[in-house]
C-alpha cells in the first residue's frame, strides 16, 4: 500500500494549488481525482474573475493572498495564466444599492482594500458606451482582476507534479477506513493508499466524501450557466457586475479576457439546486437581454459557446475550512460557493502553512470558516 504524508481528494481549484504548496514544502503529496485530468470538475466552469473585495474578513484575507500569488505567477514561475488587473466594477442605477455599497465601502476600506465609489464619467472611461441612463456611479476596485481557469489549473498541476506530487486521475475515492478517530486507509476504484492527513477539496462532491467518515458537511451544489463570445479587440477593462435582480436572475457579470473574448455568467433566481450541468434554453435569452441593455454595443458580438457549472453552496454562503473534531487527520477546504477559483490559490497557501508550519496566524480565518459555526449568517455582497 502506497503511503503519503497528505492525500488530497479532488484536483480542482482548491486541490491543485494546495498540492503544489504542500509539495513545495517537501511533503509527499498524492492527489486523487475521479475526472481524467486536472481542473475538470468545476474549475473549468469558472469564468476567471478574482477579487479580494468581499464583504467578510476571511474571504478578503484569503483572496488578497490569491491575487498576490496569481499576479506573480508569470514573474515567479514563468507561466502565463492570462492575468489581467482589470478591476471589478459595480455600476449602480438606484439609490438603495448606492446606499448599500457605500456602506460596505467603509467596511472594505478597513481591510486596506483598494476600492472606491467612482462617478458616472469615470465609469464610462472604463466601459465606453455603457448605458448612462440613471447610472449613478459605482464602486471600482482596480486591483482585482481575472485569469484563465484552464491555464491556472494546468500551471498548478505542472508545478505540483514537478515538485513531486503524485496525481491519480480517473481514480475515485470510494471509501475511507477509520481507526481510533483517524483515517487509516483510502480505497479508490483502483487501489488502496494511506496518508498522514486527508484533505477534502472535492468541490461539489465534498458532502459525499464527508459521509465516508460519518460527517455531514453541509455542501449542496446548485448550478449557474455561463457563456463566452468570439474574441474582439479589448474595448472595456473591468469585470462588470450588475447586482440588480430581475424576475429570473439575481445578478449577472461579465468581463473581457486576455484573448479578447467576453465571458459572462448569471445567478439564477430562484436557485437551481442539483448537479445537472447540461445547458438549458433559458440562459441565453435571459442573460443577453440584460447584457445588451446594460452595454448596448455588445449586441453585435457573437456568442460562441455556453456551459453550466456547479456552485458548491453552504447554508450561509461561506466556505468551510479546517480540521474536523470527529476525525483527527481529516481537513476540509470545501463549500467555496462558486468562488473556488479565486479562493483556491490563497487558501492553498494558507492551508499548507497551517499543516506544515503549524502556524496560528490564520486562526481568525479558521474560526470564521469552521464547520462548527451556526451557518445562520448571510453574505452581504454575493
Amino acid at each position, binding site marked *: 500500500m502506497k503511503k503519503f504524508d497528505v492525500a488530497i481528494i479532488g484536483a480542482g481549484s482548491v486541490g491543485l494549488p494546495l498540492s503544489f504548496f504542500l509539495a513545495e514544502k517537501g511533503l509527499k503529496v498524492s492527489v486523487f481525482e475521479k475526472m481524467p485530468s486536472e481542473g475538470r470538475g468545476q474549475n473549468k466552469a469558472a469564468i476567471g474573475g478574482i477579487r479580494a473585495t468581499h464583504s467578510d474578513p476571511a474571504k478578503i484575507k484569503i483572496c488578497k493572498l490569491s491575487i498576490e500569488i496569481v499576479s506573480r505567477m508569470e514573474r515567479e514561475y514563468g507561466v502565463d495564466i492570462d492575468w489581467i488587473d482589470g478591476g471589478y466594477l459595480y455600476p449602480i442605477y438606484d439609490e438603495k444599492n448606492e446606499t448599500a455599497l457605500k456602506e460596505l465601502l467603509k467596511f472594505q476600506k478597513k481591510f486596506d482594500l483598494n476600492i472606491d465609489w467612482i462617478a458616472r464619467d469615470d465609469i464610462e472611461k472604463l466601459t465606453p458606451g455603457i448605458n448612462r441612463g440613471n447610472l449613478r456611479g459605482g464602486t471600482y476596485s482596480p486591483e482585482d482582476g481575472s485569469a484563465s481557469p484552464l491555464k491556472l489549473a494546468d500551471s498548478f498541476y505542472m508545478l505540483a507534479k514537478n515538485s513531486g506530487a503524485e496525481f491519480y486521475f480517473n481514480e475515485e475515492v470510494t471509501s475511507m477506513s477509520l481507526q481510533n478517530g483517524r483515517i487509516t486507509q483510502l480505497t479508490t476504484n483502483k487501489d488502496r493508499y494511506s496518508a498522514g492527513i486527508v484533505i477534502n477539496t472535492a468541490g461539489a462532491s465534498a458532502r459525499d466524501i464527508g459521509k465516508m467518515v460519518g460527517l455531514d458537511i453541509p455542501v449542496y451544489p446548485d448550478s449557474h450557466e455561463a457563456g463566452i463570445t468570439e474574441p474582439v479587440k479589448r474595448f472595456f477593462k473591468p469585470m462588470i457586475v450588475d447586482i440588480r435582480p430581475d424576475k429570473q436572475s439575481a445578478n449577472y457579470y461579465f468581463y473581457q479576457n486576455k484573448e479578447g473574448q467576453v465571458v459572462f455568467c448569471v445567478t439564477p433566481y430562484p436557485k437551481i439546486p442539483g448537479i445537472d450541468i447540461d445547458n438549458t434554453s433559458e440562459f441565453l435569452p435571459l442573460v443577453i437581454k440584460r447584457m445588451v441593455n446594460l452595454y448596448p454595443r455588445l449586441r453585435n458580438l457573437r456568442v460562441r459557446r*455556453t456551459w453550466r457549472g456547479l456552485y458548491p453552496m453552504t447554508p450561509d454562503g461561506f466556505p468551510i475550512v479546517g480540521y474536523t473534531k470527529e476525525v483527527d487527520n481529516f481537513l476540509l477546504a470545501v463549500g467555496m460557493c462558486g468562488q473556488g477559483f479565486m479562493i483556491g490559490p490563497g487558501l492553498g497557501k494558507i492551508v499548507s502553512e497551517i499543516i506544515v508550519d503549524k502556524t496560528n496566524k490564520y486562526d481568525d480565518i479558521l474560526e470564521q470558516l469552521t464547520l462548527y459555526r451556526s451557518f445562520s449568517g448571510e453574505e452581504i455582497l454575493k
Partner: protein
Amino acid sequence: MGRIEKHPILSIPENRKSVKFFFNCKELYGYEGEIVSSALIANGIKEFAIHQKNDAPQGIFCANGQCSHCTLIIDGFPLKSCVTPLKAGMDIRTLKHLPELPPDNRPLEYYEKRELKCDVLIIGGGPSGLTAAMELAKLGFSVVLVDDKERLGGKLLLQTHKFFGSIEDCYAGTRGIDIASKLENEVRTFSNVTIYKNTSVVGIYKDRKVGIFINNRNYALVSFNGLVISAGAREKSLIFPGNNLPGVYGAGAFQTLVNRDFVRSAERVFIVGSGNVGLIAAYHALQAGIQVVGICDILDRFSGYKVHADKIKRMGVPIYLNHTVLSAEGNGKVEKVTIAEVDNNFNPLLDTAKTYKVDTLLIAVGLTPVDEFYDMANQFGFKVVKAGDAEEIAEASSAMFGGRIAGLEMAKKLGKDITIDDSFSEKAEILKSNPGKIFRRKEIKLNENFQPVIFCQEEIPCDPCTSICPIHSIKLEKIYGNIMDIPKYEGKCTGCQMCVAICPGLAITLARKVNDEYAEVVLPHEFIPDFKVGDKIPLTDQEGVFLEDGEVLKIRLNKKFKTFLITVRTLLKNGANVAGIRIQDKSVTEPLPEPSFNYLPENGIVCQCEMVSVKEIVDYIKEHHVRDVNQLKQIRVGMGACGGKNCSTLLPRVFEMAGVDWEEVTQGTKRPLSVEIPMYALINEKVVE
C-alpha cells in the same frame, strides 16, 4: 478566376444585377445578393483575413458558416463573408487580427423571445430530411424542417451528375440538382410541414428545446416531441505543411463556389482523395472550365466507384495511387503542391516527389457524420432518430430511402401503430453498399446493328439502364438478385440511345460495325462540345488510354438527361473499346521539371481556427502528460469558432505522433453553441436600417 459563363449542366442565371462595392477601397463589381466571399473570389481575391497568430493569411475554408476563416470587416462590422449577401456600395475590408467591436451605442429598445412548437423537428433538409418530412407529414404530424442553406436539397444541390441507384426508388439517372427541386416541390405540397431555410441549429437544450438561428437575424426556441437528425456530413481535414494556406479547402466548399455560386474559383486544382467526392469534384471542376492537374490517394486503389474514376481518367486527369501530399506552398496563397509516393507504411518517399503549379488544393479525404446533435438528444433522453449521412456516410440515393425509414421510425416512437416494410431497410442497405468485386469485361464483336457496349464491371448499386431500355435487352446478371449485380446486354437493340444517355457512370456506348475498316460509336458527353461535325477528336478506352483521333459524325443533345450524344467514326478494332473523349490536354498535368518543396510535416496545422500546429500539440502532449483532449484547450485547440468540428478527426493521429495510445485518451466535451450567433439575434432585437 472569374465567373462561369457557360456550363453543360447548370443554367447560369441571367439578368443578375451587377453592383459596385469596395474591397480595401478598391472598386469592384459583383452581383447583388450573391454571397460576399463568392463575389470576392470571382474578383480574384483569396486572402480575406490575417490571423493574429503568426500573421497567417486566411481564405475561404468551409464556405458554410461553420468556421470564421472568411471573416471580413463589412461596413464596419466583422461578418462571416460566406453567409453575408452582397449589397451595392458595401465597404469590405481585410480583417487583420482581432476585429474591433463597432461603438454601436443605441439603447436596447425592443427584444422578444420567439418560440415554435411542432410534433417533429427535422434538422437538415437534404435528401434524407426531406423524405423523412414527407413520411411524417403523410401520417399527420406537424413538422418543422430547418436547413442552413438558401435552397433545400443539401448536397443534392451541388451534384450535377446523374444519380446511381434505381429509377423506382431513388430517381436514378436524374441529376442531384433536379432531384432537389422535385423533393422540394413535393414537400411543399404538405401544409403541415413548415420550412425554415437559411436556418442553423445553435444548440440542443436539456429542457427539450432546440435553438435555431433564422436568416442570420433571429433566434427561436423550438419545442418538439421527436427529433430527426439529418444534418449530413462534414469533410475531414488533412494535416500537411501549408494546409492552412488560402486555396486549400474541402471539395464540398469548392462545389459550393462552383455549382451554387457559379464562380470559377480556380484556374488549376489538384485533388487529394479518390473517393466519390474527390472524383466528382474533379468532374465538376472540368465542367466549370477549371484544369484538374491530378488526383492522389494514399491507398493503392481508388475508393470511389470505378465508373467515376474511369470517367475522370478518360477526360485526361491522372490519378496517382499510393501517393500523398507533401506540402502546399506559396506566398499568401497556394501556388504549388508537391506529392510523393508512399512506402508500405504510408511514409513518403521524398525522392519520388513531383511538384505541380496549382492555385487550389482540394481536400476530399472522406466525410464524418454530423451526429453530435443526435448524441446530445440521446443523452437527454429525447425521442430521436438519425438519417442520411448523419447516420452513416453513403450515397444520396440511399439517404432518400433512409430518410423515409427514419420518418416512419419516428412515427412509431411517437405512438403511431405502423409497420415498416422489411423491403425498405433491405433496399436502404443495398443502396448504401460499398463497391464490390470488379469483373473482367468480355470481348465484344460488333455487327452492323447498333448494340450497347457496357463499361460497367464493378458491383455498385445501380440499374437505370435496365429500366430505360424499351425492349428490356439490358438485364442484370443474377448473382445477388439485386441492383448490385452487373448489367449485361442480351437480345436486340433499337438504337434509341437511352441507355447511353441515362447511365450515371457514362459507362455505356452504342457501337456498330460500318464496314471492315470502320465502326460508328455513340458516346455520352457532359461538356459543351468544343468541336463540330467533321472534326477529329481524341478518343480513349475505358481507362483513359488514347486510342485514336476519330471523326465526329453527329452531335445531338438529349435534353431530358442534359447529355450530349456524340457519334464518332473509329477504326473497327477500336469500336468496342472507345469509351470517351479526352477533353484535357496532357500538358496541363505535367509537373514542374524539378520538384521543389520544404518537407516540414510538423508545421501542418491541426486546429485551423486557432492556428495550432502539429508540433505545438505534440510537444504539449508530451510535456503535460496529456491524456484528455480537454487539456488541449489550454493551448486553444478546439476553442475557436468551429468548436473542434474540423480538428477532432485529426487528433487520434496527433496523439499517435506524440506516442500516446488514442484508446487511453478521454474525448473532448462538446458544448453548444454549434454556430456563433450575435447577441442581437438571440434577443430578436429589431433592426433600424
